[in-house]
């Protein structure tokens, strides 16, 4: 692992006159690592994702530093890929799947349309879409939720970004598809040496692949460290509560035998 990709210092973000969505955030993201950012509703985790991606809305006020390796602000779409929870909303409904993945490559990699379209086909194969040649010509709404998320991932990595940010990419999917998408992201990131920031409410889900875990609670970073350390000996009571709230197949059942 080389140096830091990005360093956040004293980051504070507010929307309009509202309370801070993020406050006093000090966080380092190393190049090539898989960082999981865990938090519940209102924790500020999506704001953190948008701030990293440079996609905050106009009424957001940013205080503090976001310092990138090399000093230059990365270009969203080219240097940073983004996968959202709702793939249906992030894909263009009137463009064929092949065209919208190719558009990213054409725009950011300087490819001709023919090259970009061929690249698009390769990407669909890479994200394990069955029958990629057929899917090139379909529209997003004709696909299942899991296939749509695969297409969104293909579009996000089309320009070979250094950083992939996935904000609750599996929360709208069933557990079977969720496991497939997580395995896919993990493999793609490793193969390409990308940095992954995976935002989730589910600490058990990320425990299977994250190098480091950062926990946000009520706009503050309560804990960040190597995954094994955070999971095994959480320093913050809130992290401990998240871990103990996990329901797995070995969790004691809440009911006895039926009366």
């Amino acid at each position: 692992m080389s140096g830091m990709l990005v360093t956040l210092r004293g980051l504070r973000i507010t929307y309009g006159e509202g309370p801070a969505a993020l406050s006093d955030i000090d966080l380092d993201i190393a190049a090539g690592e898989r960082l999981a950012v865990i938090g519940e509703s209102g924790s500020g985790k999506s704001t953190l994702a948008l701030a990293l991606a440079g996609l905050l809305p106009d009424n957001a006020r940013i205080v503090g530093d976001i310092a990138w390796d090399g000093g230059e602000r990365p270009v969203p779409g080219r240097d940073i890929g983004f996968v959202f929870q709702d793939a249906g909303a992030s894909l263009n409904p009137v463009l064929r799947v092949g065209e919208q993945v190719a558009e990213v490559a054409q725009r950011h990699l300087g490819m001709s349309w023919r090259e970009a379209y061929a690249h698009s086909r390769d990407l669909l194969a890479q994200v394990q879409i069955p029958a990629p040649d057929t899917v090139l010509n379909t529209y997003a709404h004709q696909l299942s939720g899991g296939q749509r998320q695969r297409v969104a991932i293909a579009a996000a990595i089309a320009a070979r970004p250094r950083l992939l940010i996935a904000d609750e990419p599996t929360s709208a999917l069933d557990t079977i598809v969720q496991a497939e998408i997580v395995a896919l992201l993990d493999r793609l990131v490793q193969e390409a040496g990308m940095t992954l920031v995976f935002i989730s409410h589910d600490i058990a889900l990320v425990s299977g692949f994250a190098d480091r875990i950062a926990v946000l609670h009520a706009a503050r970073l309560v804990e960040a460290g190597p995954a094994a350390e955070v999971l095994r000996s959480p320093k913050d009571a809130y992290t401990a509560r998240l871990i103990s709230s996990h329901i797995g197949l070995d969790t004691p059942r809440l009911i006895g035998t039926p009366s």
Partner: protein
Amino acid sequence: MTALLRTTGLSKTFSGAGRRVTALDDVSLTLEAGETLGLVGPSGSGKSTLARVLLRLVAPDAGRIDFAGTDFTALRGEALRSMRKRIQMVFQDPLAAFNPRATVADALGDPLRVHGLAGRRERPAEIARLLGRVGLPEELAARPVHEISGGQRQRVAIARALATGPELIVLDEAVSALDVTVRGQVLDLLVSLQRQDGIAYVFISHDLAVVRAVSHRIAVMDGGRIVEQVPVQSVVANPQSATARALVAAVPRLNLRGAGEGDR
């Protein structure tokens, strides 16, 4: 002993845009009073269609539903209305289930008014009692539903289901949108209400681990069919169907070693 709920050969096909989708294919199941049947399966397996058919929000193409010894599918008019009191529902997104401008008192007052369960003068006391049953303070009654937290809102949805004193509540992904630290409390609440009132639940989720935590029996659905209907222990320890095996494998495991050690 007759089952509280018995479905026989329920089938439902949706067609449109030149496609036919079999949402339910010969679904037969039973549920005893005071029991929880977990219904688990991937997206599109027919779980939510089954919920809607059980509630008679959607009519089946074939099959019948017997509830407390009566053919529920054949009921009309007043008999249907009075049966509806006995079967209630809680959905995933409580905000979508409420009028956005309603207060908590409005949301809880509606079923009391519609079913003639409490007159205008008794209503505030009854609303306070219902809030108490789901662990919410009386003062919440005056608050708009959209201003309270997600966990509080789902408790209000449960209170509204309780208002008619049901024998069965169909819970369709009722805890799936909740924060994990809130989810456990809502599950505890459901279990304690079942113990107190002997309510039966059909508990629908795509998450086998959550279903296992609260269900006495589990039915696994896929492609509109029930592919496995067994006691909870055996579905996890010894899944018979490919769907059940995939659901067991897909449950996120809390890996305390972290990914940095072990398999890499």
